[in-house]
């Protein structure tokens, strides 16, 4: 059991982190104090052309220089600083969070059609699998993940989440079940523009992991959710599927339902299931995925985890509980629970 909440303002109007913290903390019962985290889009306007790399260092003196040497090999560090934190009595600071604004050198990945993204992906996979005292847990432009092993309020206060202003937020309160809680295992999981929060478990993790690793991604966080971030990156960014079709691959209709569809739809759905059989996710899950333009929520196809949607003006909310949404906007309207496996998508207007 975990608690999730996401909100997008379709006009890109900024919201500071105060309310999202309160909303997440209202679902404390869904967590165990072993992991919480937030991601906000739109928080680094002054550096928006550069990739914002958030890094956990084990020991600054030992591990910072090797990471910087590696980054300098692939591009330029435009600016770096310690991420501002504020010690909390109930949160043991086991890592030092640092941020880099980084410009990759596209000429170093000559055969790629998306050289910058491929350099960043390469760096994230390399650093996180070598585990040399540094972990890159956030790597998109104009966005940042803030997470740690602790309760939602403590993690929010540790990072002073109220000081960040974003038009799209995801937040997660973790109740680790199959693996131990640790800083890197807290949600959101992020790669480039993609961030993922997840309640439940992906019992098909083994299959999904083998599939995604065959494309060069490496699963290094000892937990199932990261595979979702990489699958979305592969299907949507690399293969060009719409978010809707990607969700269709992750939580496809049952064969018996496909058999009842009109011929053209049958063909499409069969093709998706056959092509992306190894990307299909089993087990109970409710997931929110975000990129700079979009918030997507969906559940497993027999709906073993809760997901509530609400709308109010330009804002779309997706959460485990209606009450959490009402912490942010008490008069939210159009509350509904989407059907199993069917994505709810909120997109910015411009």
């Amino acid at each position, binding site marked *: 059991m975990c608690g999730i909440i996401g909100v997008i303002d379709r006009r890109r109007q900024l919201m500071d982190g105060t309310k999202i913290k309160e909303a997440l903390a*209202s*679902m404390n*019962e869904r967590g165990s104090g072993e992991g919480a985290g937030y991601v906000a889009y739109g928080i680094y306007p002054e550096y928006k052309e550069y990739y914002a790399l958030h890094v956990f260092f084990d020991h600054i003196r030992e591990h910072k220089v090797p990471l910087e040497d590696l980054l300098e090999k692939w591009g330029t560090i435009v600016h770096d600083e310690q991420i501002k934190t504020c010690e909390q009595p109930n949160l043991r600071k086991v890592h030092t969070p640092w941020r880099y604004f980084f410009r990759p050198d596209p000429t170093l990945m000559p055969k790629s059609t998306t050289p910058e993204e491929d350099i960043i992906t390469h760096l994230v996979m390399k650093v996180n699998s070598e585990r040399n005292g540094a972990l890159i847990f956030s790597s998109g432009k104009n966005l940042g993940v803030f997470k740690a092993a602790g309760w939602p309020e403590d993690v929010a206060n540790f990072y002073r989440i109220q000081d960040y202003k974003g038009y799209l937020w995801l937040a997660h309160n973790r109740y680790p079940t199959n693996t131990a809680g640790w800083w890197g295992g807290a949600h959101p999981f992020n790669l480039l523009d993609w961030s993922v929060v997840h309640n439940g478990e992906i019992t098909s993790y083994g299959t999904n992991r083998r599939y995604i690793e065959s494309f060069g991604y490496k699963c290094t966080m000892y937990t199932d959710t990261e595979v979702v971030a990489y699958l979305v990156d592969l299907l949507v960014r690399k293969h060009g599927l719409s978010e809707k079709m990607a969700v269709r691959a992750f939580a496809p209709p*049952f064969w018996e*339902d496909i058999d*009842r569809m009109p011929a053209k739809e049958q063909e499409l759905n069969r093709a998706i299931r056959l092509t992306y059989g190894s990307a299909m996710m089993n087990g109970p899950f409710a997931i929110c995925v975000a990129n700079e333009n979009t918030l997507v929520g969906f559940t497993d196809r*027999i*709906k073993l985890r*809760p997901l*509530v949607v609400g709308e109010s003006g330009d804002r779309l909310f997706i959460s485990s*509980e*209606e*009450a*959490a949404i*009402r*912490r942010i906007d*008490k008069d939210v309207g159009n*509350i509904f*629970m989407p*059907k*199993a496996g069917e994505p709810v998508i909120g997109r910015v207007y411009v």
Partner: protein
Amino acid sequence: MGAVHINAKDIHYTQLNEQIRTIVARGGKEIILDNILGQRFIADGLRGENVTITINGVPGGDLAMFMSGPTIIVHGNADHAPGNTMDKGTVIIHGSAGDAVAHSMRGGRIYVRDNIGYRGGIHMKQYMGKRPILVVGGSAQAFLGEYMAGGLLIVLGLNDAAPVSERGVGSGIHGGEIIVRGEVEEKYLGMGAKQQPLTSEQRAEILPVIEDFARVFNIDKEPLLAAEYSRIIPAHARPFANKYTWE
């Protein structure tokens, strides 16, 4: 003791339930909870006759779990599993409810004015004189009455939508009955469930329940009393005898 108001804003459910229990122990019969927002487990295990708790707001999950006797009236939506293993009493929800409404309910009544989520009435049961009743005014999502072992579950489909148009209705049902206004498309019936028209005796048995539901929510009862209903029950006496046991 007259009606007791509690401003529940930012009060944790533990303190809230302590206050409720204290009031009931002192003979309080009417409690009004204002500004409820997400508190779980309200009135869980509470016993008492003629006690009414009005909830203004959106309560959290497992409302009235194990409750035996009181009446709860919610002005707002409820989250997952209201009436979980409830023993006796009434829960009236002026709104919708989440997944697993009336989970393992063993007695009493739950009325939901609007819609419910997945697995409504899962594992409802009955024994001797105890027969739980769940009535839903709007529609239900998939796996309605999953593994149902007893009790009565009625879905009326009043909000311009079919009572249920998703898979697995009565999946694994081995007791009790699911009544829907109109009928459920055959493809939506779950494994081990079958659908039948009602006999006049069966109809006579459910109409008073529907009439009571209409009274509580102030809905015109006549169209409901005149409507056709279908009944979903176990296909056999022990539909899963061969699946889980060897004899």
